[in-house]
Structure formats: structure tokens, C-alpha cells
């Protein structure tokens, strides 16, 4: 084996990767050649020096950093849905609170809606405070509620009953 071929095989030789017969031939040449033995020493030292570059420790939190990166690349509507699911998962009382809030809002709106017609309703009730309860039975009186509120019923009743006769005359 010549020097040139030996030198080309030295990287495999120092790693023990040569087939047995080739390794034997390289060894024989090295035994006889000072130059190639020196080359072998330099190659072994280079291999050893490569091991002086120590490992680095990755910065902590690389997994959470990764998921944050995945999240930031989602479409905006998916991000909102995901965050909503996360909030509910972390705080199960949120749906109950939300439901209660909805109920309160609906109830409030309903009460506000009913309070839009206060005058007729309260007047209707008030009108019958002062009126003889028997009068409530007469539908004509109910329909002419305003008239009833404004006249002295007992004083003018006779005038009303005789109204047609006085007009006729």
C-alpha cells in the first residue's frame, strides 16, 4: 500500500471502520512509514480536539414556546375559539355565571318593557279604588272610564238618564 492510499484511509482507520484485510494492510504500511505514522498522530489529535466542543443546554420552556408559536399562526377566529375553550376549561363556573347574566339581562329587559305602559295600567287600577265595586260589572262604565273619573256620579246621574228627553224637548 502506498502513502497516498494510506492517508486517505486514516479517518476510517481511526474510527475502526475498515474491513479487517484493509486494516491489516494499513497497519503494515504504518509500521514501515514514519511520515504516515506522523499523519496518523495528527489525525487522531484532530479527532480528539473535535470532542472539546461541549454540548449546550437548550433554554428552558422550549415546548411552551413552540405551542405559542403554533397558536400565533392560527387564523384569528380559531384563536378566539381556542381561548374561549381554555377559559371554560380553567374556570367551569364561567358558563353558570354567563347563564345567570343572560337571565338577568332578559328579565331586566322584560321589566323595562312592561314599565312602558304605566299610566293606563295604574290609572285603571286606581279608577276602581273609588268606584262602587258593582259598577265594575257594567261594561259601559269601563269603556267610559275617563267620564266616570271626572263627574260626580251621584249628582249627575239623573241628568244623564234624562238627557235624551231634554234634547228631545
Amino acid at each position, binding site marked *: 500500500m502506498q502513502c497516498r492510499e494510506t492517508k486517505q484511509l486514516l479517518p476510517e482507520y481511526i474510527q475502526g471502520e475498515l474491513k479487517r484485510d484493509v486494516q491489516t494492510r494499513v497497519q503494515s504500511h504504518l509500521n514501515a512509514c514514519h511520515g504516515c505514522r506522523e499523519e496518523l498522530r495528527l489525525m487522531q*489529535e484532530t479527532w480528539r480536539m473535535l470532542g472539546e466542543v461541549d454540548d449546550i443546554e437548550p433554554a428552558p420552556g422550549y415546548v411552551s414556546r413552540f405551542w405559542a408559536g403554533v397558536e400565533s399562526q392560527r387564523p384569528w377566529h380559531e384563536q378566539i375559539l381556542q381561548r374561549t375553550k381554555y377559559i371554560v376549561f380553567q374556570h367551569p363556573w364561567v358558563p353558570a355565571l354567563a347563564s345567570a347574566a343572560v337571565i338577568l339581562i332578559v328579565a331586566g329587559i322584560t321589566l323595562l318593557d312592561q314599565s312602558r305602559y304605566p299610566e293606563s295600567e295604574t290609572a285603571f287600577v286606581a279608577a276602581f279604588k273609588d268606584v262602587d265595586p258593582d259598577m265594575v260589572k257594567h261594561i259601559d262604565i269601563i269603556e267610559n272610564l275617563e267620564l266616570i273619573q271626572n263627574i260626580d256620579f251621584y249628582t249627575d246621574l239623573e241628568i244623564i238618564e234624562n238627557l235624551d228627553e231634554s234634547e228631545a224637548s
Partner: protein
Amino acid sequence: MNKLFKESNPYYSDPDVQRMLAVQQGNRLAFEELMRHYYPRIVNFIYRFGGNQGTAEDLTQEVFMRVYKTAPRYRPKSKFQTWLYTIAKNVALNDLRRSRRLADSIEEPAEGEDHKYHKDIGGLKENAPDEKIIQKEKAARVRAAINKLPGNQRVAIILRRYEEFSYAEIAATLNVSDKAVKSLLNRAMQNLKKRLSEQVGHD
């Protein structure tokens, strides 16, 4: 048809391939297992390729983002490790091209990188013991020498020396023959020996 494919695919016995297939089904915990196992190794692979730790961490995040986004269409055509390091190699080489630390021809080494690594040890000289400074200086010179290697020689020597890949695994990662890997490693060692010869003679 799927069952036949699974039975004939030799990579289905790889546990990490199984984890990746679970990720494909939406299993995020399986992805975290892969990440916890491989992240430290990938960050070191990229760090040894060149640059600082911050850059290596950013690029490693990019590697795993590519893996995650590829999950829906993942088909095991190699060991998971081979596929992962192929992605890491591509990310590292692309970054070098972008930052113009690699010369126009992919086979020509970058120049003028020595000073960058000596910045790492500048702050230590005042207070650190001599042995620590010497060790840091040696490491800086080795990193500078590696950084002068052409792209594929750099990948080959890092995978062989630090990740202990077999020639076949390196060949699969680089998509070259075993013979080409031996040639790359030979040239890389010759180049490193020349650049480190000052240090090599003293120990």
C-alpha cells in the same frame, strides 16, 4: 390497501415513526415526547453548524414547526431520526445561505470567521482560572475550523463525530451514497487537520 402498506413498510417498527403517526391523529402529547427527546440534539447540531445559541434555538423551533405542519401528510419513508435531521440540515444550510456566511459556490468554505468565536472567551480572561480559558480557546478554534468547512462536509463531520450516525444514516440524510460520505468525511478531516495543526502539535 392501507394494511398491506403498513405490513410491508419497514419503518413502522420505529417507535418514533409511531409517535409521528399519533401526532397525525391529533395527539399533541406524542409530539411533545418527540420534541423533548430530539430538541437538545437538534439545537446542538445546529449550534455546531455555526452561529450563536440564540440563532440555534430559533432555527430549532423552525425545524419542529416544519415537522408539526407536515404531520397531516406524513408518510414514513425512513427512520424518523433520518427525516428529522434532513429537515434540520436544510434549515441550517438555508440559514447560512441567507446570512451569506457560505460562499457563492456551495463547495467553497466561508472565510474570516475566526474572530467571532474569540468574542465568546473575551469576558472570561480577567477572573477565570487559566485551564478554563485554555479550554474555551480550544473550543473556539475548533468551532471556527468547522465553520470553514463547505456545507456537506460540515454536515457529515458533525453527524459522525457528535451524533454518532452510521455512514448509511449520513448517506440517507444527505441523499448521497455511502462512498460519497466516506469521501466527504475524509476531506473534512484533512481540512480540519490543516486548520488545527498549530494546536495539534502542542498536546
